[in-house]
């Protein structure tokens, strides 16, 4: 393995966003922030994917994060995006900790399908709860940071920068985690679980830990998306949302902790371009673009960066 420059790269990207941010148009800042939010979810999925687990229901935690962020505003009148993200992560992690006892027993397609069922149950509950606005959802309080409301000219930039900072912190922690023995267990679990057990490690506990971390990341992503978009609704838990996250993760590849963010950004751009160029057939453009990416970049977008090293 070459000298890993992941953290310096991340730091540099952060610096670029902070410095170049004021020059970017607001719509671009918005796209970047949404990409970061979705990238956080994809990062969690990537952790699971390294162990061979695909969750078809990660939108469950994305939605929990978003609704926690929204509820903090709606019921406690707190619009601070840092509080919202921390609360979102905490609630998502707590739910994942409880559900993890069940899910850590599952593998393969069944892990995916059970998570799908759980996210759809949350969707059903939210649709039924008129106090939370049913399918229409409700608006999230305008974002503030440490109690200060940025002016409208700057709010996109501040949200993007804070989101970027939080994402950087989370990514750095994940990066550290992957270097621990527990983190390095994932590929081994994917290859052969029984051998891992023979080594004297509990696979179930390792998966449970990963599951909780992935949920916390999704919770942060959901909260960030909520405060950025300013509105939340039950569709955030719908299976198509989960599908989008899986797509981003596969698109990105598992090569690096940075990959999911790149994947989310590219996905957002393809989506927007397809909407622009062919409003009547954007699904076809999106499908074709994604098909081509899978066929020609089988190891994900990240392979663009590593291919030369391998050669």
């Amino acid at each position: 393995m070459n000298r890993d420059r992941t953290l310096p790269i991340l730091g540099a990207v952060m610096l670029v966003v902070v410095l170049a941010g004021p020059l970017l148009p607001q719509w671009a800042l918005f796209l970047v922030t949404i990409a970061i939010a979705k990238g956080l979810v994809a990062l969690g999925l990537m952790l699971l994917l390294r162990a061979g687990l695909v969750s078809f229901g990660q939108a469950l935690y994305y939605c929990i994060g978003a609704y926690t962020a929204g509820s903090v505003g709606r019921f406690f009148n707190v619009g601070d995006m840092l509080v919202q993200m921390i609360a979102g992560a905490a609630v998502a992690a707590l739910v994942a900790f409880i559900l993890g006892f069940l899910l850590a027993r599952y593998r393969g397609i069944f892990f995916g399908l059970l998570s799908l069922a759980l996210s759809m149950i949350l969707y059903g509950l939210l649709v039924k709860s008129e106090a939370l606005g049913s399918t229409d959802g409700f608006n999230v309080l305008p974002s503030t940071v440490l109690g200060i409301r940025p002016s409208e000219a700057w709010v996109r930039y501040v949200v993007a920068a804070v989101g970027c900072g939080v994402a950087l912190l989370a990514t750095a922690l994940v990066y550290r985690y992957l270097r621990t023995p527990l983190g390095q267990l994932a590929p081994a679990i994917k290859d052969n679980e029984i051998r891992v057990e023979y080594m004297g490690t509990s696979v179930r506990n390792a998966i449970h830990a990963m599951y909780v971390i992935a949920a916390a990341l999704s919770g942060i992503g959901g909260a960030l998306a909520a405060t950025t978009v300013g509105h939340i609704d039950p569709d955030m838990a719908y299976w198509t949302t989960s599908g989008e996250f899986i797509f981003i993760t596969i698109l990105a590849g598992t090569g690096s902790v940075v990959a999911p963010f790149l994947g989310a950004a590219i996905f957002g751009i393809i989506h927007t371009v397809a909407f622009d160029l062919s409003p009547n057939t954007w699904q076809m453009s999106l499908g074709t673009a994604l098909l081509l990416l899978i066929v020609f970049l089988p190891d994900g977008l990240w392979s663009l960066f590593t291919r030369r090293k391998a050669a």
Partner: protein
Amino acid sequence: MRNFRKLATAVAAALALAPAAALAQDAAPVKIGIVTFLSGPAASPFGVPARNAAEVVTELLNAGKAPAPYATKGFGGAPIQTVIIDEAGSTTTQVTEYRNLVQRHNVDVVIGYVSSGNCLAIAPVAEELKKLTNFFDCGTARIFEDGSYKYVFRTSPTQTMDSVGAALYVHDAKPKLKSIAGLNQNYAWGQDSWGDFEASMKQLVPKVEVKTSQMPKLFAGQYNAEISTLLGAKADVIHSSFYDGDLEALLLQAAPRGLFKKSTGILSAGETVIHKLAAQIPDGTVIGARGPFGPYAPNNELNRWFSKEFRDRYQVPPTYPSYQMAQAILGVKAAWEKAQAANGGKRPSNEQVAAALEHLSFEGPGGTVKMANGKGHQSIMETAYGMSKVVGGKLTLTNIKRYPAEKVNPPDGVKGADWIASGFKK
């Protein structure tokens, strides 16, 4: 790395190209962003009829071929240019695309949104970006009941009006009614429609018995079990706010089982299907059009002009979403020109147009639209209901009753639910 650079160049080129293609026309046109469903199940009943209306109306306005008071070309002489965007996808997608419309395409006005969820999500963003935005179809009353906006308008009436109107009509047409039942889609529109209808009926007929309220999933498609339950319930009337594909499926499955022959159906959004499914709607079914649209539209010059032009081009009569879109464009045009006149004939700013649209009263193909509620941002209109009667294979409406705007809409500043609970107090 080289591959990556190629990709980045391609992406950048595509992004740069998109708005440029739409640009380049003479004398500072007015750019309108039109957002409505072009894919998914809501495309056929709402999205496409609305887009068609937008196309025909903007073209005619640009040619100066509209009757008075809309005879000026375009918006105050400036030609109209449209950017059309699909409303499908999550609210996150829609907020993203809204920002793109405003900040990348630099549209002057946004007219659109069928989904109430999207309207609720877009409203604060419109306010943040200070962009005049007119919701043409979505029904939820929450937008202006819960919030107060400067740049956000809705020229269509709310769902409260549909439910109250339905209840009043049923009460008038069936004074001896004893029981009601509901069949509504399990999402906000269906829940609110039923909630307001049920509450209104309880005000009008205090002893009314609610037999059952069925709430199938949106786009469920299979309604055998619901129909059985409703047949078993034997209610005098069945209220349904179903629309589009779901309503069509319901009617197809209910017809052979005689559901709406045994209980009178009230289809509050039924007008979109009457041209297609005349054979499946038993005579005496109550049909709503979410306002004085389609068959309930007044016989005035604007309506004759609009429905003729629409029919000539698309070979079908316009349904209520088309009326709502036409009305939304005409309303903004009226405000634009009023603001331009006040501005000494110079192109008005968004703030000036918004100020002109507040509390404005204008004429549309559906009659008078009064921006009376929501501090002048929410329209009220009269509404009408009637009963179906098939004559020679065509569905006609008989026994039409019209209810003045003030009778079916709450006074400004009062929430619909509170107004109904107070016994429709003025």
